[in-house]
């Protein structure tokens, strides 16, 4: 038995090593990387020649990337993807991705672009290349209409509900220690706690609170943008500067016609109504104020 365990251990070790080697190949300078990493990304010309671009999107994140009842991809991310396909003059093959597999898809070049509500973070920047942002998110605070909170100062001495591990928890405990936090493990619990009146207000991503407030009468988002602003951007395989530059030029060019405002009107407005000002979500030309 001991022998078997030992052999098993070495087998696992060998496999891990093989992976480490494979992964480390992905780093390094752009030119050698393309040949070093076995997964080869495609340049703009190669995509055009093949007549098809592979774009990874969410298929279950309404209203950003989802599938309608006819089986067609829809949403804010998809609206941009469609335009990319049109301007490249190629067909689009959508690939349904999950939050946890987005980086892997790019590292293995199984998709050309990820357009799946991909928040730009330093950790991710080491593994993929982000283009200019086309959307931004911040925190929002929702509260009962009878006791509407429109300013952070009003929260002093009151209970604010947050979900554990979210940016809301980090932000308020670091910047506003005077506010008492009521923490829950799950999102549904936090919303239920607000309805029950266990807390005075609730904070999480502004897109989430805005959508929730629309469904739940008697609650309004009093603060729709607070805390650090995160941006959401398309991403390509690390080192694929050719495609990256093309996307950046595209985003800059689209600013003239206010393309992303149109995307907002088409996809987000039907959901958020007038509760959200496009200025709080949409980023034109990659410029975040």
């Amino acid at each position, binding site marked *: 038995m001991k022998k078997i365990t030992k052999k*098993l251990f070495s087998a696992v070790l060998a496999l891990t090593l093989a992976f480490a080697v*494979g992964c480390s190949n992905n780093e390094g300078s752009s030119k050698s990387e393309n040949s070093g990493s076995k997964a080869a990304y495609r340049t703009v010309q190669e995509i055009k020649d093949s007549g098809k671009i592979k774009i990874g999107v969410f*298929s279950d994140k309404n*209203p950003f990337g*989802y*599938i309608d009842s*006819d089986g067609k991809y829809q949403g804010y991310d998809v609206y941009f993807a469609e335009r990319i396909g049109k301007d490249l003059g190629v067909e689009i093959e959508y*690939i349904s991705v999950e939050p946890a597999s987005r980086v892997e898809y790019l590292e293995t*070049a199984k998709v050309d672009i990820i357009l799946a509500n991909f928040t730009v973070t330093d950790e991710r920047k080491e593994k993929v290349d982000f283009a200019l942002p086309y959307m931004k998110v911040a925190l929002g605070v929702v509260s009962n209409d009878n006791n509407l909170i429109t300013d952070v100062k009003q929260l002093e001495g009151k209970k604010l509900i947050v979900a554990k591990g979210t940016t809301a928890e980090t932000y308020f405990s670091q910047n506003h220690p005077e506010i008492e936090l009521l923490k829950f493990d799950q999102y549904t619990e936090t919303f239920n706690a607000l309805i029950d009146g266990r807390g005075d207000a609730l904070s999480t991503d502004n897109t989430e609170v805005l959508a929730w407030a629309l469904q739940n009468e008697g609650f309004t988002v009093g603060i729709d943008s607070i805390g650090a602003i995160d941006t959401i951007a398309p991403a390509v395989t690390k080192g694929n500067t050719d495609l990256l530059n093309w996307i950046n030029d595209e985003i800059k060019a689209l600013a003239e016609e206010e393309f992303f405002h149109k995307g907002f009107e088409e996809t987000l407005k039907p959901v958020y109504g007038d509760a959200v000002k496009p200025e709080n979500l949409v980023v034109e030309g990659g410029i975040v104020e």
Partner: protein
Amino acid sequence: MDNMGLGIIFEGNNLLRLLGGLWITIKISFISVFVSIFLGIILGMIMTVNSRIIRVITKIYLEFMRITPQLVLLFVIYFGATKVFGIDIDGQTSAFIVFILWGTAEMGDLVRGAILSIPKHQFESGTALALKKHQVYLYIIIPQTIRRLIPQAINLTTRMIKTTSLIVMIGVVEVLKVGQQIIEANRYTAPDAALWIYGVIFFLYFIVCYPISKAATILEKKWASN
């Protein structure tokens, strides 16, 4: 508002899409199960061979497949093969590879156990009748093994069918994912759709798995009475 959730199922192509997803689930699990049973019987016979090296190798294979979560295996084949060797395997093929590798390992161990449970005199009597080794296996051992295998094999089959819900992680959209897509697409217009859609999915899994376990019971009864 009433029956909104149920109505969602019949909206547009939703029902067709669910059935399409179910077809993917059935295709991947049934083909994998079929191949696994065939290869598993061979592996099981190999595992009973009286050689230390073969036993160690098969044991490593079995334990590796058993310990590693299927999700990790899917990632290793789908993403790992591309990263390390530059081989681009599509999602469905990766799923087949993983499920066959896993199924064969589990099935092999079940077969090994079943063969070992067959009394030694069955082998000896066969040999005494001047049957060659492969004939002993083909006519005496395997038929008895298969009977003893049925309950566990059915268990493994239904487990494999249910585990196919993981393949969505490598981009293969099966019935459960289609369900979630429908729920999410209607989250603002019909928040109660989830209950109905999951109900339908439960029913779909049931009509796939139930006949299998029913058939197994009938077979067992039939053989028991013989």
